[in-house]
């Protein structure tokens, strides 16, 4: 079984987000960029399907292909995926923000060429928080989907996926090929070892452009401005539970 995992290069999740003073966007200059955490979980799951582990039989996956759509530097994100254990990478070089629909269209073309049995994506990227690409891709391919996965069990021709939904967990069977998107608790990604980081440098990365797939990546949505969120002004410290209850009564919330 071949597994394809799209990965996105985003601002490292530990860094503070700064809005540019002129409101033209978020300042990313000279800041550390990393693999989107949900995408890292997707790669980890695919690699476990190959190595065995996390409830998967060894060699359940025979090949893991990582794909990234982004600038030249997204090669580093792919190398990160290769260091975790993906076999090869495909970089679709595109500068600027590429919206989820265009990403889904590029991925559809990649999938038609690669013919994977399973595609695992992060449920959302932590930059634009769209939570849309996986579902869009499933619709474009007319494939079934299981989003927000916390557990994947593979069977012949289908996958049983447990999903994190409002109020609890839901389990679905999806026929393969299918799209699965990862939630936080699917697995805990490994730290890539130094030998694997070195090995990853030798793994192949194919470089393509959106034009190779006939996809127009010009944005459909116009961003008028980017602002800091409204600051909530801190209140007061109260000295005792009695004073707190008094204040809450005054505020009319009891």
């Amino acid at each position, binding site marked *: 079984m071949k597994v394809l995992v799209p990965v996105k290069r985003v601002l490292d999740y530990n860094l503070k987000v700064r809005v540019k003073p002129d409101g033209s966007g978020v300042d990313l200059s000279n800041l550390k960029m990393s693999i989107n955490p949900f995408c890292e979980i997707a790669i980890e799951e695919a690699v476990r399907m190959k190595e065995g582990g996390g409830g998967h039989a060894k060699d359940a996956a025979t090949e893991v292909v990582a794909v990234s759509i982004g600038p030249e530097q997204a090669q580093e994100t792919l190398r990160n995926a290769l260091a975790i254990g993906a076999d090869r990478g495909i970089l679709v070089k595109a500068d600027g923000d590429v919206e989820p629909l265009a990403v889904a269209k590029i991925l559809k073309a990649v999938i038609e060429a690669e013919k994977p049995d399973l595609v695992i994506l992060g449920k959302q990227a932590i930059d634009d928080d769209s939570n849309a690409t996986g579902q869009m891709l499933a619709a474009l391919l007319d494939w079934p989907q299981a989003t*927000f996965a916390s557990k994947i069990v593979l069977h012949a021709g289908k996958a049983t996926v447990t999903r994190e*939904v409002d*109020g609890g*967990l839901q389990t679905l069977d999806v026929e393969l090929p299918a799209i699965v998107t990862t939630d936080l608790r699917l697995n805990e990604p490994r730290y890539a070892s130094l030998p694997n980081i070195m090995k990853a440098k030798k793994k192949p990365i194919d470089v393509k452009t959106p034009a190779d797939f006939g996809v127009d990546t010009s944005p459909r949505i116009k961003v008028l401005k980017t602002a800091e*969120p409204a600051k909530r002004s801190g*209140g007061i410290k109260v000295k005792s539970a009695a004073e707190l209850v008094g204040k809450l009564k005054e505020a009319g*919330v009891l």
Partner: protein
Amino acid sequence: MAVLVIAEHDNASIKDATNKVVSAAKAMGGDVDVLVAGSNAGAAAAEAAKIEGVRKVLHADGATLAKQMAEPLEALIVPLMSGYDAVLFPASTTGKNAAPRVAAKLDVNQLSGVIGVESADTFVRPIYAGNAIVTVQDGQAKKVLTVQPTAFKAAGSGGSASVETIAAPGGPFKSAFVSEEMAKSDRPELTAAKRVVSGGRALGSSEEFHKVLDPLADKLGAAVGASRAAVDAGYAPNDYQVGQTGKVVAPELYVAIGISGAIQHLAGMKDSKVIVAINKDEEAPIFQVADYGLVGDYKTLVPELMDELTKAGV
């Protein structure tokens, strides 16, 4: 201009999120219809017809819609869009699951987690876990939005719209429901609760988490939430998680106990009307957003708070 709102419901009744998304739709101007897609959901459809400002309720009923899964919802909604300029889903797991499929089939990009409607084509939404807010113009022929319900006031329930029955999609579909495991609780649902009591990693164990929070929640008639740290540590179940990657809540009263206040958590609760923080670290970031902060050990402060609430007749 006509806008279709996808109802959040459990077949028996309409969730308050629906009324809130209707308000967002009304802010766009034009006619607002509501789609109730479910199985034996007649009662929910009748309830949707009472939401103020709704022109018409479309009610699709069938076995394929029982769990409101993404593929049948796509099959149902895409053809309906010939009659609408926009479709608004609540940003629930059901809405987030289905909306992008509809958008892709309509060949449009989706706007996710909308928190403000400035006009029929201009919207406000958070990015970077709420650390930046963008105003965007969507000039596409059809608009597909998921709407953060807590950002809008619920539409009232004095309406009397007509209910039109439409056919449910037949299938077959390539995904099948197997089972579900829903948390059972007599407490209000987290995202709809007027009061929320939330605990963090400082609680130290699952037993302590419930021992401290459950009685306080019961006293206040509150839902129980948790920080991601507490969930990851196994003190509270996944569906308790309040934060950008969990649930976004905006109750009248939010009580944070032993929660330091990571950005991730604040993004999920900072729109609450009144925030109370109890934490022994007076430098904890939670105090920067709390209206009332109480510095000290929750082990003594929570029982004191219980006593004071009793004295105050709560």
